[in-house]
């Protein structure tokens, strides 16, 4: 009986979540849907970072660079190879996944802060490298889709899908969050099963994991590669939404932003990540609403991060777990 109630509650939650996803754009302005879409791109990248940092315990300060790889893959395919923008997303994910695998290789030797520095180095160096190889990447000016490849941009001036016509902003919202929800579901399947246990065992004790037969090298690199796929897809969507990419699109601050989102959302849990993504998307905007005087937005932004971390040291995910635990333990114990 309780079990049935638990499943019922669970199904109700999922349906409520999907309803919010489907109806949300109709309650906010058209322009606002694009902000929500951008939050979705961060959401996907944050899931990726959480897989490698939250679940596998490998700190990465360079996920902005993996987003950049995905974003530039999309841009180059659209501008030089004339692909339609949305069809580049899978390839962007694969390319960033491969790069993620390579980034994961130092993790076999480095741990903790040293690994953090190695990934940080990538994030710091990439914008300069992109500028250096300007004949390939468009250099400082970057690649502008509307200027050089408007025909490849999906949804300009409205689009019709399955008989529903919608604005470009709504299209971007549904595209991003559909991919986000699928990615979330896949990540959820992954971490609740054998792979998730393997990841967590590496995070909690490498020695214990290795002595139980876990292949450390394979686990770490696979976690990085998977994480790269998510970051790459997020980066591709980010570029598609902005219709432009340049070396400043993905600086170190993006890597930091994603990390803040993952920690605020809750490392090692998935449900809070939506909140983490919304936090990093909206906090800068909200803090400019306080006052646009130089310095005030930065101050508010930083203070908000500090206050949230002091109040929720384990992020939104930790809070959700604490709130839900009495309910779940009641539901899943036999009376």
């Amino acid at each position, binding site marked *: 009986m309780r079990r049935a109630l638990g499943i019922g509650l669970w199904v109700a939650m999922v349906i409520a979540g999907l309803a919010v996803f489907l109806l949300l754009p109709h309650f906010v302005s058209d322009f606002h849907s694009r902000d929500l879409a951008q939050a979705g791109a961060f959401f996907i990248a944050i899931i990726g970072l959480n897989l490698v940092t939250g679940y596998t315990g490998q700190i990465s300060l360079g996920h902005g660079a993996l987003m950049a790889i995905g974003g530039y893959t999309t841009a180059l395919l659209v501008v030089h190879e004339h692909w339609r923008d949305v069809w580049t997303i899978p390839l962007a994910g694969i390319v960033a996944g491969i790069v993620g695998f390579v980034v994961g290789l130092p993790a076999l030797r480095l741990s903790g802060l040293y690994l953090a520095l190695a990934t940080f*180095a990538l994030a710091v160096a990439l914008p300069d490298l992109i500028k250096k190889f300007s004949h390939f990447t468009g250099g400082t000016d970057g690649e502008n889709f509307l200027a050089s490849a408007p025909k490849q941009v999906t949804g300009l001036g409205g689009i019709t899908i399955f008989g529903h016509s919608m604005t470009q902003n709504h299209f971007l919202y549904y595209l991003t969050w559909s991919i986000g929800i699928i990615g979330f579901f896949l990540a959820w399947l992954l971490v609740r099963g054998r792979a998730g246990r393997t990841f967590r065992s590496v995070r909690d004790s490498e020695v214990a994991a290795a002595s139980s037969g876990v292949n450390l090298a394979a686990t770490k690199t696979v976690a990085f590669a998977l994480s790269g796929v998510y970051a790459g897809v997020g980066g591709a969507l980010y570029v598609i939404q902005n219709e432009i990419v340049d070396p400043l699109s993905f600086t170190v601050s993006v890597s930091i932003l994603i990390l803040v989102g993952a920690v605020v959302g809750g490392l090692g849990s998935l449900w809070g990540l939506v909140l983490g993504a919304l936090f990093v998307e909206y906090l800068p905007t909200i803090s400019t609403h306080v006052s646009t005087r130089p310095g005030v937005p*930065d101050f508010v932004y930083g203070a908000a*991060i500090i206050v949230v971390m002091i109040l929720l040291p384990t992020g939104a995910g930790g809070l959700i777990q604490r709130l839900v635990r009495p309910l779940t333990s009641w539901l899943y114990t036999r009376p």
Partner: protein
Amino acid sequence: MLLALDWTQLAQQTVIGLSSGGTWALLALAIVLIYRSTGVINFAQGEMAMFSVFIAWSLVNHGLAFWAAFFLTIAISFAGGVAVERVVIRPVEAAPVLTVVIVTLGLLFVVDGASKIFWSPERRTIPNAFSTRPIDVAGVAFSIQDLGNIAVSLGLVVLLWGLFRYTKLGLALRAAAGNPDESRLLGIRVSWMLALGWGLAAALGAVSGMLTAPALGSFDQNLMQPVLLYAIAGAVLGGIESPLGAVVGSLLLGVFVTLIGTYVGWVGTTLRLPVALAVILGVLLIRPTGLFGRSEARRV
């Protein structure tokens, strides 16, 4: 190419490298100090140093002599560092490491914002601590400023080493960082030792900033950002646990970066940081705990 190597230029560039490496070393020491006691890299260290530079600028503009402002700023920064630890870090002392890291990132934005609120974001100048006049050493012209920077940096390093090695306070600081639980049993106020560590780190950063700012000519709120990157890189290169490593790592990095910037054409000034980071990554892959780091034996 090699035959045309100009030894005078090499010596000059090395000293310039040591001079900037010395200022990075101070910030790197600050980072190591906090890392050893708290286990996190304080990403706000650079911005805190920048704030100190602006305090020094205000003091000088109110008519104080440079060296008076210099020492007053160090004292203010020390108090500020202690206050920051008490207010911002203490509440998350027991939280996971990454939570504390995110708090220092938040602190970075707060300090940056506060500095822009107090001082408008325009370029300013601060008088030079040392004359920029060149002096002749063994037939090679060095600037007094560079030599002075090196002297102040190394002097401070020695002073700090003396504090940690020969005073009771230093012993307490080391004990609190190394084994907090037992230190508490011995009556050391561990929490306050952490706060003192933050104060010392802020003071070190202040000196680093006050040496960096005049060398740049003019500065604004971004002045310490590259210094922070180099300092973190130097500290990690030396082994993040090791103060000696932080100093040696930063000095090596300073010389290396200056020399490749001068002698390798395609690196120039734009690719200096990426190349330096790539080299450090290479070093770390061979020595995963940095040049002076020890790998820890752990009981499982």
